[in-house]
Structure formats: C-alpha cells, structure tokens
C-alpha cells in the first residue's frame, strides 16, 4: 500500500509538472515577444489579471467558457479513442442550424420544446459525425480527412438554406432562421452584475457524465481500451468498429450541444452572425486540458480569460493580438511538455520498478543466507 502511495504521489507531481512547465515556458516566450516590441510584459500581465478578476469579467469568462468546454468534451471523446474529430466545427454548426429551424417552426411549451431542440441538435451533430465514423469503419478513410471535407460541406449546406425564401428570413441586413418562441428561451442564473448562462449547469452535468462514463462504466473502459490499443481491445472482445462509430456518434452529439447556449440563451435563431470556429477552439482546449474533465474546464476558463482581458490590453497600448500568440505558444508548449513528462515518467517508473525488484531480490537472498 505504501508503495502504491508513492507511485500515486509521483503521478500527481508529474501530472502537475506538465502544465506548470508549459505555462512557465509560454509566459517566458510571450514576455520575450512583448519585450521585443519595446513594451513591458509584466505590466501587460498585471492589466490582464486586474481586469480578469473584475466580477463582470468573471461572468463573461464563464459564459464564454461554456461552449468552449462543450466543444472540448466533444473533441476529447474522440481523442480518448485515438480518433481525431476535426469536424466538431461543422457538426455543431449544422446541428445548431437545423435545431434552430425546427425550434423556429414549432411553438410547444418550453419543457417540451427546449429538450426537443437540444435533441434535434444532438441528433444532427451525431449524424454528421457518424458519416465520418461509418466511412472510417466501412471504407477505411481517415476521419481526419473526412471531417475536414464534412466541415466544408456543412458550411455549404447551411449557406444554401440560410437564404431568404429557403429556410431563412431577412432581418435588416441579416438572414436568419425564424426566431424561437419565447417558451424556448433557456433559463439563466441571476448573478450580479450580469446573469450566468444557464447552460453552465448542462456543461457541468455533461462534464461529470463524461468522467463517470469513461472511468466508472464498462462502456467507458472499452472506449479507453480502444484508445490505448486497438489490437488489444479487439482481442479483449471490444467491437472496435462499432466502438468507433459509437464514439463518433457521441462526439457528434456532444458537438450538437455547443451551439445551444447561443441559440437558446442569446440569439434565439441561427443567422449569418452565428459564431463559427468553436470546434477548432475545442481542439486546443482538449489538448490543453489533457482530455480530463477538470483540466478542460480550467483550459476553457483560461481561454475565456485570455479573450476577455486581451481586449483590455488595447487600452494600455498593447496589441490584443498578443493573446493569439499566447494561445498558440501555450498549446505548443503544453503538447511538448506532456510528451516529455510522460516519457520521463515512464522511464522513471521502469527504473523504480527495476530498482525495487532488485532490492527485493537482495533481501530474499540475504534472508536465505542468514537462515
């Protein structure tokens, strides 16, 4: 027991080492860049920390982090399977679009309409992701490439229907789907100075479900097995192909949720101004949070923080674009740091195991000698 405690402690230290290493490296690199532009990096960080800790900033950051987090979850479901779902972006957009179309066409009471809209989104998202899953299992086409193609096709489908006289209406200079009835507006959490998005609750629940299913259920074990070794999973009785399709479907369903905070809590329709690109942000956040539900939450909040406070930098004569550099550097440092720490950890453990076994062997030898 004592021994495993030591291995656990090592694991925790190594687990923290990677992100710390990465953040330190990223801060250093960013500082050098800011210095090179002839400005003071420390002041920039101070401005960001100060502005980021304001209460309205915090609300903003959390609200911003919710879709990011959902997106990261969608990506992470694939990652845990060694599947690279680059198509989360297309999936959430097409999902939100058709959910908005269905929602705009119906006027049911909220307790029916809201779940219905969410369900439609999850369904459409999983269908779109499922295409990639099916093509991978039946035709052996890499999901990386199919999801990239499907992103473009999703954009074209939306573009086709999002026109006056097709599925959209004209509103000033915008086209959007007919707005949802008031019954399908999602609740928000009344906080000061601004309300928190009610979808935060959904995000937390989905995050917990993600953790629970992966770590505590047979299904989750199977899924992780496939991610670690497809061949071992197959020999262990996991239907790998079915698992690939299933997890693509799940990933797509999770992707379907990404657009919901916006649709149900803010825009109430899908228009030409519906946010794009969250799927790609999700990849960065999943990498950063190491596919761990808590890690990804932290990463999503960090992303929100950077975006919130980046704008403020403009008032102090810094370029807000430095935030983009920071994001890129952090992700890059993190993936390198994780890999280094992982390999170091593995070697360390091998060495420890070797040393410990040798010590055991010596002890038994001694015991034999002395007896």
């Amino acid at each position, binding site marked *: 027991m004592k*021994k*495993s405690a030591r*291995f*656990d402690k090592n694991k925790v230290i190594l687990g923290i080492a990677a992100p710390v290493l990465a953040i330190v490296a990223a801060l250093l690199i960013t500082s050098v860049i800011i210095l090179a532009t002839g400005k003071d990096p420390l002041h920039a960080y101070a401005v960001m920390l100060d502005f980021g800790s304001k209460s309205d900033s915090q609300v903003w950051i959390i609200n911003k982090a919710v879709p990011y987090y959902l997106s990261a979850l969608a990506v992470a479901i694939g990652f845990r399977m060694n599947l690279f779902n680059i198509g989360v972006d297309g999936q959430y957009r097409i999902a939100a679009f058709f959910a908005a179309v269905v929602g705009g066409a119906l006027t049911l009471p909220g307790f029916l309409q809201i779940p219905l809209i969410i369900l439609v989104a999850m369904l459409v998202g999983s269908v779109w992701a499922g295409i990639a899953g099916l093509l991978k299992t039946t035709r052996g086409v890499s999901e990386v490439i199919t999801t990239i193609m499907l992103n473009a096709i999703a954009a074209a489908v939306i573009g086709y229907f999002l026109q006056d006289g097709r599925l959209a209406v004209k509103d000033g200079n915008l086209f959007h789907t007919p707005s949802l009835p008031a019954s399908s507006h999602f609740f928000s959490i009344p906080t000061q100075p601004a309300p928190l998005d009610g979808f935060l609750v959904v995000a937390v629940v989905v995050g917990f479900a993600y953790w629970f299913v992966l*770590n*505590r*259920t*047979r*299904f*989750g*074990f*199977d899924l992780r*097995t496939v991610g*670690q*070794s497809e*061949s*071992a999973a*197959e*020999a*262990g*009785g*996991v*239907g790998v192909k079915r698992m690939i399709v299933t997890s693509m479907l799940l990933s797509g369903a999770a992707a379907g949720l990404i657009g919901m905070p916006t649709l149900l809590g803010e825009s109430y329709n899908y228009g030409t101004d519906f946010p794009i690109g969250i799927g790609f942000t999700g990849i960065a956040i999943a990498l950063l949070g190491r596919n761990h539900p808590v890690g990804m939450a932290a990463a999503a909040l960090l992303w929100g923080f950077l975006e919130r406070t980046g704008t403020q930098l403009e008032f102090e004569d810094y370029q807000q674009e430095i935030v983009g550099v920071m994001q890129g550097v952090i992700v890059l440092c993190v993936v390198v740091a994780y890999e280094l720490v992982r390999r170091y950890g*593995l*070697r360390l*453990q*091998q*060495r*420890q*195991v*070797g*040393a*410990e*076994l040798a010590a*055991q062997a010596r002890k038994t030898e001694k015991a034999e000698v002395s007896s």
Partner: protein
Amino acid sequence: MELRGITKRFPGVVANHDIDITIRRGTVHALVGENGAGKSTLMKILYGMQKPDEGTIGIDGERVSFHSPADAIARGIGMVHQHFMLADNLTVLENVVLGGEKLHGIGGKARTEILKISERYGLGVRPDVLVEDLGVADRQRVEILKVLYRGARTLILDEPTAVLVPQEVDALFDNLRELKAEGLTVIFISHKLGEVLSVADDITVIRRGTTVASVVPGETTPKQLAELMVGSELPSPQTRESTVTDVEMLKAEGLRLSTADAEGVERIVLDDVSLTIHKGEVLGIAGVEGNGQAELVEAIMGMRDPDSGTITLDGSDISRLPTRTRREDGIGYIPEDRHRHGLLLEAPLWENRILGHVTEKPNAKGLLLDLKAARADTERIVAEYDVRTPGIEVTAASLSGGNQQKLIVGREMSHHPKLLIAAHPTRGVDVGAQAQIWDQIREARREGLAVLLISADLDELIGLSDTLRVMYRGRLVADADPATITPEELGSAMTGAATGHLTVSEDGPAEGRTEEGGSE
C-alpha cells in the same frame, strides 16, 4: 575481433554485463543463450545500433567506436536482425541499395550487382518484387544479400533459424559454409543447440547478460551446453500422464477464410480446417509462421469472420458470436504478441487485469466497473502467479516480459476457461517463468481444460501436447503422435514435404502416408 568488458543497461535491466568475446577471422562463431540473455543487445552494440555503457570493441587489434550502423558497415560488418529490417512497400532492390547507394547507384548497375551476388551464393533473389509479397525465407535471403551487397566481411545473423523449417535451415547452413569458404566471418545466434553444434567453429555461451563459457563443438554435448545456458538442469515441457477425456470441448468444422490484399486479390488463409479438442486435451499445432495459425486462432476467438464453417464450444454453436461473448462463454486467450493483443502497456496492472473480461466478475457489477474488487483480485493474481512487481499501480510497460506474461496467464486462468488458446505462451520469457507457465497449463489440463497450443518451439509443442497437427498453407496437412515424433519429422511436414499421419519410418525422416491430407 574482440569485445572486452561490454556493459549495457536498460531501464530496469542490465542486458549485458562485462562481456568478453574473441572472434576469429574466417570462422562461424555461435552465440548461445536463453531468451533475454542479452545476445541481440550485444550484437547491436557490435553493429553500432546501440552504444555500450562500458567496454571496448577491437577489430584487428585496433580499437573502434561505432556511432551508427554506418560506421560498422564501413568496417565491413553487416547484420541480419532477429526481426527483419525490411520496408514492405519498397522493392527488394530498393531495400538492398538503401544506405549503400554510393556503391552501385540505385538503378541498373545495382540490379546487375544484386543478380550477380544472388547467383553466386544461390540466393535466388528477384530485385523488382515488393518485399511485402515475399515469404519469410525469401525475406531472410534478401537480408543476407543486403549485407553481402555492402561487401561485408563479417556477418551477424541473429536467430536466423527461428522462423525456418529444418529443411530451410539446412539450405541456410549451406549458404553459411559457402561464405566461410570465401573467408567471411559469421557470427550466428541461436538457442537451438543441435544446429549450433553442427555449424559452429566456436561457441560462446551467454547467461543473464554475461559470458559464462567459450567452448568448441567437438568437446561438448547439447546437454552440457544447455546446462551452461540455463545454469542448471533444463526444465522439461514433458507432460506425464494423459488426461484426455472423450468430451468434445471445441469443434471446428470446415473453416475457410480468405482475405483480399491491397490490389483486391483474394488469398485463402484458412482452407477447410477442421479440428476437435476434448476436455483435458492439449492440441498442438505446428507450422511455419504465416501458414494460417494466427488466423485460425483469430477465427476461433471471433476476431475474424470465416467465410464458412462452424465452431462449437462445449456443445453450443459459437460461430456467429462476437469475441466478447466467446470469452464470456469460456475461452481464455494467451496471445502470440502480448504487447499488441494482451496488454495496455501504459495502463496500470489492475486495468490490465480487467482487459478482456470487463463484463465478468469481479471486474464489473452490472454496467458499472467494480474497481475495488478488480484491484483486490489483481493483488491476488500478482501473489498467486508470482508476478514480480512492486505494486498493482505500476504500468504494464515497466514489467519484464516474463512477468507481463505471468500476469496474462493469471488473468486468463482466473476466469476458469473451458478452452485455453495459448499462442507461443513462453516466447521471450525467461526460463523460470517458462517452467511456471508450463506447470500452469498442465495443471489446468488436469482439471479438464482443453488447450489449443501453438508454438514455434517444437520441443515445447511435442512436450506439452496430447495430439499434434501440422498446418501448411492454411490447411491441416498432417497429424502426429507427440510420444513418438521428433522435431525433424515435424519439420518436414511443416514444409509440406509430408502429409497425412506421420509415423517414424525406418530410414530417416518422416514419411507421410499417401492418403488424403490430414484434415478429417
């Protein structure tokens, strides 16, 4: 050539410890030692692929240090690796000239040269075939040609015979003698002592990473050599009393499987295979690798879908069931390649204990995992099967091969299988663990387990099996009685030279009866 005080450590293992060897020019020098003794590591050091932590290499009295194989090649050393080093998607020509492009270019001149060498040593190599399309023996000849092409004067052959049948071994040895006659030096690794004694001029024995003896073939017997190798009496795989019952446990009938390759060409890998294993019986299958054994195992495990045929386990048809259900129904599986099929290398031991049995007790309760019970049971396996580990939280990758294998055996046995499929159960496992695994298989057999045993180690196969079958090109072509058969006789059937029921004939090797092939 002299190796002095070579020491090489890997994380957790000392692969070589203070090794001293002298190799005379123009001889065949054999290096013997059990699995994991450190033979390959030593040769990789000599070939510049790994750097020794300590020690020196001298060639013709001159001290050398190799930073990469290129340095060794420049010194006229060439190596044929235990696991072939060929790029499947490249042609034979490309594989041969790679790295030696300066010699004859990569075009017509190189082709001429290859054909010339091939002819001179009777290798029969075709330069423009994709390596992917070659069989094992052909690949080995390509490897040898690769080395000769570079004008090597010293050839290292790491276990060249492991995948060859005796007849192919003879052909190889003819080649080696030819080389020796040309004044080349050959270093030859094997743990097949008969071979070694027949071809070597000098023999060095390595045990646990260090040289324990240098002997001359004329002055030693296989038994002495073996004892030098393991440092004690050889463990024997011999099974004593028969426990075979007449209750059929596994019955496969008319299994047929074909696969399509990249070009869409159908290839038949299992051709009308039928077999029966009874309770308490060990059925051994002999065959050169790549003749369908792996596919047979995968078909029985449900990892491949045969085109036709039925599989019955304990009276119920399992032909259409998925792998998981077959496992739940009582098939245990010790895979051929434990890293690919048996373990999650970066997961802790207790997760590896769940692998393959996630739906079964004690791992699961309903749809949820029962982590506590799984951990406790892992502790039990570790204790019962003598898995040497500091704890169950360490990753499988940090255990040595033998201990990994013991964990797998323990795991599979813990679910009281009706049928155990053991593919090369002791491959790459040290002698101590080997004996334990044999014991476990024997004991389970006594309790009525049926075992399908596949092994390249013919001694193991003959020693453990109650019944022997030979597989050749996807067919079961011959059967034999392990009590009377010898490895040589088995070998001739493995090349397809003999079929039917193998009996020992008076003069020389086995002669198959001329009747229709071995499948019933």
